[in-house]
């Protein structure tokens, strides 16, 4: 495992992310925080989309639920950050296991629609759930940043934690892809019926993958909404975010590990630049749309697919 070059490429990426803003460049940190969140969402989505071939359209429900659990534990129950994050992650992946057993009997677009249904149902429920502030959402007071040394240093702590979560997501995708579980997932993705005939326990593997793909996004959601000191249903369960995660995975190249990560970084930089450039400011939706249309039509295998075709030797180094 350690001999493989890609193992070290991930380590270098994490180190770069951690070192890049080196203490002063706050603006770069904020941009990299968004990139790290997108990479986490896309890599974990890839477990379902790229490996098992299941389009989880509503994957943002894990991110949102993680955010709500964590903010609730810290804001209303006064827990520490660490315990809130751990419990949020575990609670959401357990919930994903339960949801999964239900909707994973579906395939193709029916599964995609079901995930949208789950996300919208959870959002509608949270909007009426008073302990979580109902539609007002939950506000966090700045005092909660004190244990981390006040808002300034707290934002740095949150940044490094998010980079760690991003790294964990990349390694999770990497280890799963090289494991027997990963081989089983990939065979399900290729032809689920044939895989079952060969003995791959499809229902259990799909539920496990669905649950695994929920853990880290939930923790990332907890950090993200703790950082924003406010969570409301419309932000936590925003379908456009999970659609963007799909776009990113397709842009980068589904089924690969570096694909979603590269796609996330490029996408975040593009949207960030579009937003702050005068010429495109109010046309950034149009530009993003046209770009995606071209990719889906002419380079469906995404960036990595294109690179693998042009430089086949690359396949041995990058996964």
């Amino acid at each position: 495992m350690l001999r493989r070059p890609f193992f070290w490429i991930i380590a270098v990426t994490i180190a770069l992310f951690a070192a890049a803003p080196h203490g002063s460049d706050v603006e770069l940190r904020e941009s990299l925080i968004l990139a790290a969140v997108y990479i986490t969402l896309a890599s974990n989505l890839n477990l379902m989309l790229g490996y098992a071939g299941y389009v989880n359209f509503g994957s943002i429900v894990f991110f949102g639920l993680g955010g709500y659990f964590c903010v609730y534990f810290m804001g209303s129950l006064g827990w520490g950050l660490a315990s809130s994050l751990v419990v949020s992650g575990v609670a959401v992946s357990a919930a994903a296991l339960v949801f999964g057993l239900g909707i994973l009997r579906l395939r193709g677009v029916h599964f995609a629609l079901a995930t949208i249904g789950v996300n919208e149902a959870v959002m509608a429920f949270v909007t009426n759930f008073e302990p979580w502030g109902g539609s007002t959402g939950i506000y966090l007071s700045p005092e909660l940043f004190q244990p981390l040394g006040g808002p300034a240093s707290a934002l740095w702590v949150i940044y490094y934690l998010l980079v760690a979560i991003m790294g964990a997501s990349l390694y999770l995708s990497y280890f799963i892809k090289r494991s027997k579980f990963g081989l089983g997932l990939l065979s399900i993705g290729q032809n689920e019926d044939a895989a079952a005939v060969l003995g791959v326990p499809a229902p259990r593997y799909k539920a496990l993958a669905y649950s695994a793909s929920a853990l880290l996004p939930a923790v990332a959601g907890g950090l993200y909404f703790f950082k924003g000191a406010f969570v409301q249903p419309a932000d936590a369960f925003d379908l456009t975010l999970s659609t963007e995660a799909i776009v990113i995975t397709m842009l980068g190249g589904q089924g690969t590990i570096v694909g979603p990560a590269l796609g996330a970084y490029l996408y975040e930089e593009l949207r960030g630049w579009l937003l702050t450039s005068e010429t495109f400011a109010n046309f950034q939706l149009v530009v993003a749309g046209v770009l995606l249309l071209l990719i889906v039509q002419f380079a469906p295998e995404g960036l990595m697919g294109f690179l693998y075709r042009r430089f086949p030797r690359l396949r041995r180094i990058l996964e």
Partner: protein
Amino acid sequence: MTALLEVSELSKRFGGLHAVEALSFSVGEGEILGLIGPNGAGKSTVFNLINGVFAPSAGRVAFRGEDITGAAPYRVARLGLARTHQIVQPFAGMSVLDNCTVGACFGRENLPLAKARQAAREAAALVGLEKRLDAPALELTIAGKKRLELARALAARPALLMLDEVLAGLNPTEVAQMVETLRTIRGRGLSILMIEHLMQAIMSLSDRIVVLTSGTKLSEGSPAQVAHDPAVIAAYLGDPEMVRRPP
């Protein structure tokens, strides 16, 4: 001879259509049983009933004494019953080696990845695919894909191998090679249940033959007995009396 596979009174109805009706037969340890019959006799349906792709409407299937009626395909495979598909179902995007490794990983011995790769290489070599291990499955010829189906099933080191027209679509030399491969496999104490239309191949390979027509068992016995059974001839060639009547 203890029965490896025991099928008793198996039936399957799709709405009004009786695809399989009260079918019973068994496969002994180390035996090759041929399953023949005209198109639409329900042969592939029987396979799908045994390995759990369809749940039977009635009847019972036991494998090494354990009742597997209607069990999920992956449970049946885990017990050591592997099968190939009439229409090839390769994992197109994966390499030949990976295809076989899936079989080895999730078959009877549930091998860890490293050992599974080794078993996969052996199975691929057995069917003559050792030179194409890294090629993506979609690049293989139809014959290659047929071999891959077999290799994948073999990699699982099954106790019983169910072959669904593995010779169909092959040219004569490929048929000869495949028959030879089946003979070498047979030598390792593996039992085979085989659907085939190529009479001379199945007649030479099988110890016993079951003839199926429109879902029911028409006849059973050694290849010679079955070949001379008037009912079988009628089913295949029409009424034997016709041979004698003047034109």
